[in-house]
């Protein structure tokens, strides 16, 4: 949930974030919402795919990311669907969700409701149509490996915090200051507060953990 345009009140934003996190946890597919004040003259589809390539939403191997982009000034929106979800959420379905769940509510200025409806609709398709994913941690991991991972994680964390305090990149305000934040390799055990801590003083961070997923330009656009 990245509301760069401050379209939603904080409690609505929080509700959406929670909903997104829960659904991601439950299904594995990662959905990100980004609200921008303006397209600034760019092409909607162009912006969408470049953002998708920068942010790498969704799992690296499964490519199961969805990005919902809203541009307030132009009253346009676009949903980008990752390669892995194209069978579950084809273009026509994405267009349908935008047309039926989002734009009617947006026209009534019920933005939060529209976004919530979109999240529900997307995940309804994801959950009913994808094969049940094998939950990662349930595989039998030997206690030795686990212990080593934890140790490694703690050490890496301490090192990373050292590095972060000296890096000056925290204040970058470009929208696409995305995946490369110097947090180290994905193997590092990520602290639970990362997910909500992307915003540095209300500026330009991203508010999710990029998984490395790829996008092919599928999805749909709409306007209200």
């Amino acid at each position, binding site marked *: 949930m990245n509301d760069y345009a401050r379209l939603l009140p904080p409690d609505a934003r929080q509700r959406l974030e929670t909903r997104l996190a829960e659904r991601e946890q439950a299904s594995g597919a990662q959905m990100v919402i980004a609200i921008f004040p303006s397209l600034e003259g760019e092409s909607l*589809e162009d912006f969408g*795919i470049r953002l998708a390539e920068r942010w790498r939403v969704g799992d690296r191997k499964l490519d199961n990311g969805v990005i919902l982009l809203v541009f307030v000034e132009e009253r346009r929106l676009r949903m980008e669907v990752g390669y892995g979800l194209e069978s579950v959420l*084809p*273009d*026509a379905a994405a*267009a349908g969700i935008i047309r039926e769940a989002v734009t009617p509510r947006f026209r009534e200025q019920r933005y939060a409701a529209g976004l919530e409806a979109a999240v529900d609709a997307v995940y309804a398709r994801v959950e009913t149509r994808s094969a049940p994913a094998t939950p990662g941690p349930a595989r039998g991991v030997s206690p030795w490996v686990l212990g080593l991972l934890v140790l490694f994680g703690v050490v890496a964390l301490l090192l990373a915090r050292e590095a972060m305090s000296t890096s000056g990149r925290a204040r970058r305000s470009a929208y696409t200051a995305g995946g490369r934040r110097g947090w180290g390799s994905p193997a590092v055990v990520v602290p639970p507060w990362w997910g909500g801590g992307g915003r540095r003083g209300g500026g330009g961070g991203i508010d999710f953990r990029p998984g490395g997923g790829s996008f092919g*330009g599928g999805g*749909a*656009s709409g306007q209200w």
Partner: protein
Amino acid sequence: MRGLVIALAVIALVLVGIVAWAVGVNNRLVRLEQDVNEKWAQVENVYQRRADLIPNLVETVKGFAAQERNVLTEVTEARARATGVTLTPEALNDPRAMERFQAAQGQLTGALSRLLVVVERYPELKSHQGFLTLQAQLEGTENRIAVERRRFNEAVRDYNTRVALFPGSVAARFAGFQPKAFFEAAPDAATPPKVKF
């Protein structure tokens, strides 16, 4: 005598160095060329996807506007021509082959946009659920085509640059690597007009 041995050893080392470097250049080019071929396969993929949508589209439109025979035939024929032109990886070196491919696809794009303009005159067709689905799929596919074309061009650019850079270009030419053709945007290759309802 010793001087001669040393000189020969140096020459041998230099030769080994050159061969190693040439092999490095060759392997890099092989990898870049592989990338170009993969991206091309993706381009053909998405064009095929578009071609696959068309029979359904033609049938749906016929259901409401059978009298628009000209446009429907044009689309069907353009599709047949477009699916008939494919490029093997070797042909990627040939700009004329690339032009032919693009021209065939461009004709289909043109025929499709004319079809969509015609559809504008039939409000029942425009709001028909089946048509809306196809319309969304078509737009999505056109977007995918644009994306894969861009990625292909980027791969070609990387490859061409590496082929042309000196001194690697010497080794490249020796091994038979040639620059590849880009996907140019033809002057009137418009994407089908986005029909706003």
